[in-house]
């Protein structure tokens, strides 16, 4: 369980976190999304008791990160952004060292299990310095998992992994997230979509959206967007489509096709199809384009975007 209340952090005069409030329950994978410098790593460093907040409080696994930091640190597993490994150590020695710091009674056994979990069982006796970036990332993850922590905090866990490993690690995170609390940061939005039960989007130290990936998507998709492609020369097509009733925001795409949107209440597609054919164009394709999480993300992180929850409430009121 993670509970964060009005968390703020200043670096000198720069405010990195500005009144962050959120919660992550047990059995939940929460994704932290945001552009570079949004405050993701800062938040994680505060939650892991690496550094104290300037203001506000954070409760992790039932303990305060400032006043009971040792208790917090016993109960968390943390994979920092720069994977902290001793290059000149053997993989299994490194994990044994971490297990000893955690005072695990069955350290050797857990080292083997953690290595298996991340798919590195065959590299236990190699030097960390000789491993590839993806392998190091997995050793870092094994280190975070070794004591079966109540709360797992992962800063960009799948960075540098190859596609098949990414799938494995995501499955592993989801599996762990069934019983424990997982907070992970990522800028790969499809990852958040696949792995997380809930997504928190932050920008400039503030939360700008918080919801399940699905409802974030549906909440933002006010209108349906369609791509339209015709054969041959498409000159003048945009002007014609624009005149069709219900069609909004017609845009030409670099590949020669068009994009437009219409409100769900008024499906403009039949009329558009008719118009296109009647004008003598060969209609090749007309397909809906959903708003991807990427677009949501971009929309939200654009300057001065108000909080979604806030604007929704305002809409409801008006």
């Amino acid at each position, binding site marked *: 369980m993670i509970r964060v209340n009005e968390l703020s952090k200043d670096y000198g005069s720069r405010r990195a976190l500005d009144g962050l409030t959120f919660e992550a329950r047990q059995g939940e994978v929460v994704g932290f999304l945001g552009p570079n410098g949004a405050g993701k790593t800062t938040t994680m460093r505060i939650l892991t008791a*690496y550094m104290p907040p300037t203001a506000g409080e954070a409760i992790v696994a039932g303990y305060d990160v400032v006043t009971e930091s040792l208790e917090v640190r*016993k109960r968390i597993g*943390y994979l*920092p952004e720069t994977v*902290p490994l*001793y*290059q000149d150590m053997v993989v299994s020695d490194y994990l044994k060292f971490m297990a000893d710091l*955690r005072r695990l009674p069955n350290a050797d056994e857990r080292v083997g299990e953690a290595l298996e979990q991340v798919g590195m069982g065959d590299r236990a006796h190699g030097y960390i310095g000789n491993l590839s970036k993806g392998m190091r990332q997995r050793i870092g993850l094994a280190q975070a998992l070794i004591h079966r922590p109540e709360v797992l905090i992962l800063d960009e866990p799948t960075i540098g992994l190859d596609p098949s490993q990414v799938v494995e690690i995501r499955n592993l995170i989801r599996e762990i997230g069934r019983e424990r609390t997982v907070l992970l940061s990522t800028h790969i939005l499809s990852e958040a979509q696949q792995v997380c039960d809930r997504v928190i989007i932050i920008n400039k130290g503030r939360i700008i959206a918080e919801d399940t990936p699905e409802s974030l998507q549906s909440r933002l998709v006010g209108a349906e967007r369609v791509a339209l492609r015709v054969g041959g020369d498409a000159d003048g097509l945009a002007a014609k489509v624009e005149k069709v009733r219900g069609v909004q925001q017609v845009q030409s795409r670099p590949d020669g096709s068009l994009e437009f949107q219409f409100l769900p209440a008024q499906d403009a597609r039949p009329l558009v199809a008719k118009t296109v054919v009647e004008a003598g164009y060969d209609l090749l394709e007309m397909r809906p384009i959903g708003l991807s999480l990427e677009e949501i993300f971009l929309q939200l992180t654009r300057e001065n975007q108000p909080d979604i929850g806030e604007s929704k409430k305002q809409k409801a009121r008006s």
Partner: protein
Amino acid sequence: MRNIWTIAKREYNHYFISPVAYVVAFAILLVIGLIFALVVYSSADNALYGGVPDIGPVTGSFAFMLVLSVPALTMRLLADENRMGTMELLLTAPLRDSELIVGKWLGSLLFALTIIAVSFVYPVVLNSLIEPGIDQGAMITAYLGLILVAAAFLAVGVGISSLFSNQVAAFFATMVALVILWWLLGFPANYVQKGAEVFRYLDMQSHFYNSLGSGMINVTDLVYFFSLIAIGLFTGTLAVETRRWR
């Protein structure tokens, strides 16, 4: 306590895969080996005039070698953790800042003790060469002094290493600190009117050469060495703690 031991064990083992540690051990043992040989030869020449070989030059030059080699042993202890980002790992593990510092110091002390233990072969050899043997009490006291000097130097080195994230910077800062402690701090005692006593007490060299190194155990010397250890380790702990607040 267990955490201290975990950290110390890792550091101790790390010295055996580090070329720096081997070079340091080799240099120390080579120099004091040569000095030992000179002692034996010269006292053999002087034997007719009543010269007795003494282990003093060996322990004395060992202490001198420590001034130059301890910085190399301690430079990476915390500076490297700061540089590699592994500090984040240690500071988010269930480990007190003081346990980390004491563990690092203990690890380096164990390595220094290993080198000191190897050098113990010289007094043993010397003891077997002469009748009725060397003054064993003085020899043991000198070795105790050597251990205290090493422990104090290493504590200073650990404290300084925790302030840097660059090994070379930590090396030179430590060496300057040790040179001042060992050679320079005592000088003003001869020139100032007031406070000469203070400088005389702070002079580290005299706490070794004038007492433990020549077979005398004084409480003031023990207090001096233990204070230095405490100051070094306290500085280190403070540096790690303030790192969190930066």
